[in-house]
């Protein structure tokens, strides 16, 4: 576990915006997989998780517009209210950007807990909106998604900085 967290002295290369876009589209694809049954219930929101990562580690490289656009794409493919995911992701973006300086210094376990709580935010925002629009309240299993999302956080910490660690030889790093 300790090897997952970047060593304090490690300096990552600046991330490319195109890499952020590729990861977000990949997360959207994962969300669009035809999940069914128990997997559909336990499925974390990959888009929210990836957005959370980038808002925490590269808040200057990704704006609120990405959250809005990805939210609208999710709304269409989910056949939900148009703007529901957009609102959820916007709330997530705000909370992640405001807290990003603190969270980066957390240990991995604390970060997982933090990610769980953060992923709860869009779920609750969407729940409030849908209940206000007159929908039936879903079962408590609706909230399982934020637990599995939090459990996947170490995987993101491992995979997403890969592009920034691409060079092994610091003397010949091309920036």
């Amino acid at each position, binding site marked *: 576990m300790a090897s997952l967290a970047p060593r304090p002295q490690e300096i990552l290369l600046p991330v490319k915006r195109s890499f952020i876009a590729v990861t977000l589209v990949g997360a959207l*694809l994962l969300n*669009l997989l035809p999940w069914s049954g128990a997997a559909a219930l336990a*499925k974390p929101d990959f888009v929210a998780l990836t957005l959370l990562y980038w808002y925490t580690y590269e808040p*200057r490289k990704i704006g*609120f517009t990405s959250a809005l656009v990805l939210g609208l794409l999710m709304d269409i*493919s*989910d056949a939900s209210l148009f703007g529901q995911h957009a609102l959820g992701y916007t*709330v997530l*973006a*705000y909370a992640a950007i405001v807290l990003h300086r603190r969270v980066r210094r957390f240990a991995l376990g604390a970060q997982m807990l933090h990610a769980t709580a953060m992923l709860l935010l869009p779920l609750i925002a969407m729940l409030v909106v849908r209940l206000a629009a007159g929908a039936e309240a879903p079962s408590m299993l609706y909230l399982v998604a934020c637990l599995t999302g939090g459990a996947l956080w170490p995987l993101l910490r491992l995979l997403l900085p890969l592009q920034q660690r691409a060079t092994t030889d610091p003397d010949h790093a091309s920036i």
Partner: protein
Amino acid sequence: MEYSPPPFFKTGPTPLLRLLFFSALAIALMVTDARLQYLDSMRQVVAIVVYPLQRLASSPVGLAQRVGEFFVTHTSLREENARLAGESFENAAALQQLKSLQAENAQLRELLGTRSRISSSSLSAQILYTSRDPFSRKVIVDKGWQDEVKAGQAVIDDRGVVGQITRVYPWVSEVTLLTDKGLAVPVTNLRNGLRGVVFGVGRDGALELRFMPVNADIQSGDRLVTSGIDGTYPPGLPVAEITNIERDSAYTFARITGKPVARVASNAHVLVLSWESTAPREPAPEAPATAKRRSKAKKGS
């Protein structure tokens, strides 16, 4: 908890300001979507963007299914063949009867001077995936307005009504299932012709027959079929079977629950019916202002 960087770094508006702007935008979109019908064209555009991603995401599963189908054993194929042959034999007998009954029905209607009720055609569609929205019960099928699917058409399977097309995109459309809280189907009791309206309750395998007086002649096990008076569902399609009746004279209406006849939650293929009702059409709206209100009222039916 938040501190802003020194003002000589240009960072644009503060996160709070951006949160307020973007959430206001999202809420405005939602209200417009839920209350007015302005956003349909915008939905279409976004749907066209999402469509390739959706196909890409569902292709590995489809491939796995096809590979799985290839390795079906000989025995299971033979068993299925024998079962299907038996079923088709039984259906053939029923079909022969149906032909003569249809002819007889047409003659009788001609004698009575009434017009024939149904002229319907159907389109087979495959269910692509279940909507991931936990608040509603919808499925996405692989036929859209390219295949002349229209919003409002009834969707059935081999046993009965599954739901209704509620939104049409170029290549896919959304089917709201019978069990969705927002769907109502006008029905008639097969046993005595009593009319009523069946509502979904938002749970799998449960329906509710509402607004029936406490002393209504309904029994457990009664079968409800579509009445066709709404002009949306062709008459005579099986919808539900009554499972439980609670008659409490303290309330105006009895609490009648049932279960859907069709396999609403577990289907791979469905039929989309297009049906021209002979019932008189709704008169054309006089002014655009009233048209909007009507289309909203129609959405619930």
